[in-house]
């Protein structure tokens, strides 16, 4: 018995990225734009979708709902007559804390791709792992809420850097909190200079028009972007 050194030099997440590219090709072929939608648990992802999915002129929207367990979020969206597909990471995948490309691949046959223009993949609530795993999306959006603290960009730079748009939610609560919004915006800018940001409240509706317009803009993007 002897030992041999084998040169590998391979990004450890290459296997995931390869499957993500295959997903992306399937979405491109169906002319569906895909948003990977991420946040910590409880930041308001589902509510922010509820508030806009029925009201996007000219855009047929579908949702792929990722959760460790249960279909509470999917049920909320389905009640609005939006096509929703549930993906649980628990029964077959050992309760993963994020969606990966392979899980999304397994859900593609169940997606009504011919009937939609924009697919929003609501990832599992988590600011860490989802930032590492591409699933075949065109773009990534995250939500941070003002109840989470100004320091979150500095603690979770991978997530804040992975996104093209940061939604800052729950600003209706600002009068009740010791929260410095300018400090949060400064920290976001330090971690991801010039990233797009929308300050909003799913409760009062402030800023929701900008969120709707942003989604309409994604649906209207030309062809495949690398």
């Amino acid at each position, binding site marked *: *018995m*002897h*030992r*041999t*050194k*084998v*040169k*590998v*030099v*391979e*990004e*450890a*997440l*290459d*296997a*995931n990225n390869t499957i993500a590219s295959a997903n992306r090709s399937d979405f491109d072929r169906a002319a569906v734009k895909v948003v990977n939608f991420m946040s910590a648990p409880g930041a308001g992802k589902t509510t922010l979708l509820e508030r806009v999915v029925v009201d996007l002129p000219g855009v047929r929207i579908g949702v792929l709902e990722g959760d460790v367990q249960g279909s509470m979020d999917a049920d909320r969206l389905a009640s609005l007559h939006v096509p929703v597909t549930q993906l649980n990471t628990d029964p077959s995948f050992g309760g*993963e*804390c*994020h969606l*990966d490309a392979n899980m999304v691949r397994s859900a593609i046959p169940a997606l009504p791709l011919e009937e939609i223009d924009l697919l929003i993949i609501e990832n599992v609530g988590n600011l*860490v*792992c989802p930032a*590492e*795993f591409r699933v075949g999306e065109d773009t990534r959006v995250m939500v941070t809420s003002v109840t989470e603290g100004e320091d979150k*960009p*500095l603690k979770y*730079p*991978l997530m804040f*850097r992975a996104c093209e748009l940061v939604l800052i939610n729950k600003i209706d609560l600002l009068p009740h909190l010791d929260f410095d919004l300018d400090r949060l915006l400064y920290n976001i*800018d*330090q*971690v*991801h*200079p*010039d990233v797009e940001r929308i300050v909003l409240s799913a409760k009062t509706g402030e800023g929701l028009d900008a969120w709707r317009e942003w989604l309409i803009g994604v649906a209207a993007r030309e062809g495949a972007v690398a």
Partner: protein
Amino acid sequence: MHELSLSSAIVGTVVKHAEGRRVSVVSLRVGRLRQVVPDTLEFYFEFVAKGTVCEGARLEQELLEARLRCESCEHEWSIDIPAFRCPICGGAEVEIASGNEFEVESIEVEEAECIARK
């Protein structure tokens, strides 16, 4: 907490390259920006490797500093905190020269001696 997911990705990559041979050492290159805690990664790797050719393998991690390069003024600098705006010109277009790596660099595998003779 992402070290568990990352360990699974490492084992998957190594198993593919080991081609059935037993693995004794796995060498990684890990950029500082990946926010990997080396001890935690080692702990999960040992756990995830069980029942694979990686079981019992030693994990070697080469940590690489986060080095940035401004695309406007070409200034290059290293960071210890996540501040990505160029400190010289304030530019936002910044290239990550190093620090984003999460690579399996090499593996050491055990091979049976070839005793067949012609």
